[in-house]
C-alpha cells in the first residue's frame, strides 16, 4: 500500500485523537465509579480570640507551620508564600459588628485554608491537582498542578499562594521529612494531614502555648471542638458564599 503524505498525516491525526478519546473516557468512568460511604472524621479548627496573644507579639503558630512545611521566606512581599498568616479583624470580618470589645478585635487574627465543605477551588481545578478528601481536608498534588492559578481566583479566602520562583533558596531550614515545592505550582495549608496520619495534632495547634487553637472531628459529638462550638458563639468567614468553611472563630 502506498501512502501519500496527506493520507499519512490524516491517519496519524485520527489515531492520536482515538487514543486521547479512549483515555479520556476511561478516566471519566473511573471518576464516576469512585464513591465512598464510610463514616469518616470531618476535621475542623476553632480559633479562640480570647486566648490568642498575637497582640503581645506571639507568632508561634505561624513559625511552627513554616518550619514543618518548608515555607520559603520570600523577600518580595507580592510573591509571598503563606499557609498561616494574620490580618486585622476588620478585614477578616468586614460584615460583622465593629463594636465588639476592642480587647478582642484590635489584634490580628490567624488565617488559613478553610478546608471548605464545598470548596470552590477544587471545583475549578482543570487537572484534579487539588481535591477534597473524605475527611474534609482540601489537598494539593504539587506534581500534577500545572500552575494555571484558577484555584487562586476561585478562593474567597485568599488562602492560596503561588511559587513565582524556585522556593528552595528561600527556605531557612529545610525539614527533610516534608517535601519542598518547585516553581510554578500553587500551595496552601494541608491541615497537617502528614501529622494527622501519625496520630499527631497539626503543627500550629501544637505550637500554640495559649491553647487558643482547638482541632478536632466535627462528626464526633464528644470531641472538644463540638463541645466548644455548642457553648460559644463562633463566626465563619464568608459563610454566605455557601462554601461551608471548617475554620471557626470563637468570640
Amino acid at each position, binding site marked *: 500500500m502506498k501512502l501519500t503524505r496527506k493520507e499519512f498525516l490524516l491517519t496519524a491525526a485520527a489515531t492520536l485523537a482515538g487514543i*486521547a478519546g479512549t*483515555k*479520556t473516557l476511561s*478516566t*471519566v468512568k473511573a471518576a464516576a465509579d469512585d464513591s465512598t460511604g464510610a463514616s469518616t472524621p470531618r476535621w475542623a479548627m476553632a480559633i479562640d480570640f480570647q486566648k490568642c496573644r498575637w497582640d503581645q507579639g506571639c507568632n508561634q503558630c505561624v513559625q511552627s507551620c513554616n518550619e514543618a512545611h518548608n515555607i520559603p521566606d520570600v523577600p*518580595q512581599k*507580592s*510573591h*509571598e508564600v503563606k499557609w498561616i498568616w494574620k*490580618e486585622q479583624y476588620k*478585614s*477578616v470580618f*468586614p*460584615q460583622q459588628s465593629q463594636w465588639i470589645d476592642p480587647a478582642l478585635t484590635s489584634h490580628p487574627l490567624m*488565617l488559613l485554608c478553610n478546608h471548605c465543605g464545598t470548596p*470552590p477551588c477544587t*471545583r*475549578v*481545578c*482543570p*487537572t*484534579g*491537582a487539588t481535591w477534597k478528601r473524605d475527611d474534609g481536608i482540601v489537598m494539593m498534588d504539587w506534581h*500534577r*498542578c*500545572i*500552575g*494555571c*492559578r*484558577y484555584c*487562586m*481566583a*476561585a*478562593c*474567597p*479566602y*485568599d488562602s492560596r*499562594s*503561588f*511559587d*513565582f*520562583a*524556585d522556593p528552595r533558596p528561600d527556605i531557612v531550614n529545610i525539614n527533610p521529612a516534608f517535601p519542598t515545592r*518547585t*516553581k*510554578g*505550582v*500553587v500551595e496552601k495549608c494541608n491541615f497537617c494531614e502528614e501529622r494527622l496520619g501519625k496520630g499527631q495534632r497539626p503543627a500550629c495547634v501544637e505550637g500554640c502555648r495559649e491553647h487558643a487553637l482547638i482541632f478536632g472531628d466535627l462528626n464526633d459529638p464528644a470531641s472538644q471542638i463540638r463541645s466548644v462550638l455548642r457553648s460559644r458563639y463562633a463566626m465563619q468567614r*464568608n459563610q454566605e*458564599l*455557601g*462554601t461551608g468553611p471548617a475554620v471557626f472563630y470563637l468570640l
Partner: protein
Amino acid sequence: MIEKALTGSKRYWYWVSLLLVCVATGAVMYMRQLSYGLGVTGMSREVSWGLYIGQFTFFVGVAASAVMVVIPYYLHNAKQFARVAIIGELLAVSSIIMCMLFILVDLGQPERVLNVLLFPAPHSVMFWDMVSLSGYLLLNAVIAYNTLNAEQRGLPSPSWLKPVVYLSIPWAISIHTVTAFLYSGLAARPLWMTAVMAPRFLASAFAAGPALLILLIVILQKSAGYDPGEEVIGKLATIVTYAASVSTFLVLVEIFTGLYSGMPHDREALTYQYGTLHGLWGMTAWMWFSSLLMIGALFVLYIPSLRKSRVALITACGAVFVSLWMEKGLALIVGGFQPSPVGVLTAYRPTCTEWAIALGIWSLGALMLTMFLKVTVTIRAAVQ
C-alpha cells in the same frame, strides 16, 4: 497551498521579517520566564492573573466574531460577504492559536499542560474551554482549507462543508460563553460574578472583531489589491455600531447595579476601576481613556455622513478595537482581584518581559494571518 505564502514582494518580506524578529524577541523573553518562573511578570499573590489571561479573553472574542461574517454569508445568503467570510475564518484560526499560546505562557508548569487531557475534570470550566476552543480551531481550519482548496481547483465547495459551517455558528457563541463562565462562576470575585458577563463578552467581541476586519480589508485593498467591495465595509460598520452600542449599554447596566445597590464588594471593585478607592487612583486613567475612546467612536459611527468617510471610519474602528482591548484585555481581569478577599488593593503593571512575550504572540498571530491571507489572495487572483 502554503507555498503561495513563500513568494512575495519586497514589502511583503519586510513585513514578515519584522514579525519574525518580534516573535524571536518574545521567544527569548519566554525562555527567561521559563527558567526563572512567573516572578518575572508583574503578577502577584493578590493579582494572580494579568495581561496573558486578559489577552486570551480578548482574542477568544476576536475569534468568535467570525460568525458576524459567516452568518450573513451562509445563513442569509448576503453575497456582499462572499470575499470577507474567508477572512473572518482565517482570523478565527490565528486568534485561537494566539489564545492557546497566551494560556500556555501563563502556566507555571507548562510542560505539564497535557495533564488537562490525562486527568480530564468535567467539573472545571477550563476543561470545557479547552474542548470548545480546540473544536472551534478545528472547525475553522477545516472550513477555510476546504473552501480555498476547492477554489484553487475551480470546483464548488464540497457539499459536506455546509453543515460544518452551520455547526461553527453556535460553536463560536459557545467559545465566548464558556470563556465568560470561567469568570462569572466565581463567587469569590464579585466584579466577575454577573450573569451579564457572557452577553457582554459576545457584544464586545462582535464590536472589536468586525472593527478589526474593516481595518484588515482596508489594508488588503491598499497592499494586495484584494477588494471585497465597498458595500461590505458599510455592512460591517453597521454591525460594529450595533454591537458597540449593546456592549456599552451592558457596561452601564453593570455600573448601575454595582453602585446603586451599594453592595460593598461590587461597589469597591467598580470604584477601583472608575474612581478613587481608599485614596488610590487604581486603574482610573486606563479605564477613562478606554471609555473616552468608545464614546468618540460611537459618536462617529452614529452619524451617517461621518461613518461613510473612510478616514473617520478607520479611526472609529481603531478606537473601538483599542478601547475594548484595554477594557477586556487587561482591566476586567485585574479589576476582578480588587480588592482581594481581605480587602487589599494591589497595583499591577505588566513588566517589560511580559509585554515582550505578549508582543511575540501577537506577532506570531499576525504572521499566521499574513500568510493565510497571502495564500487566499493569490488563489483568488489566479481564479479570476
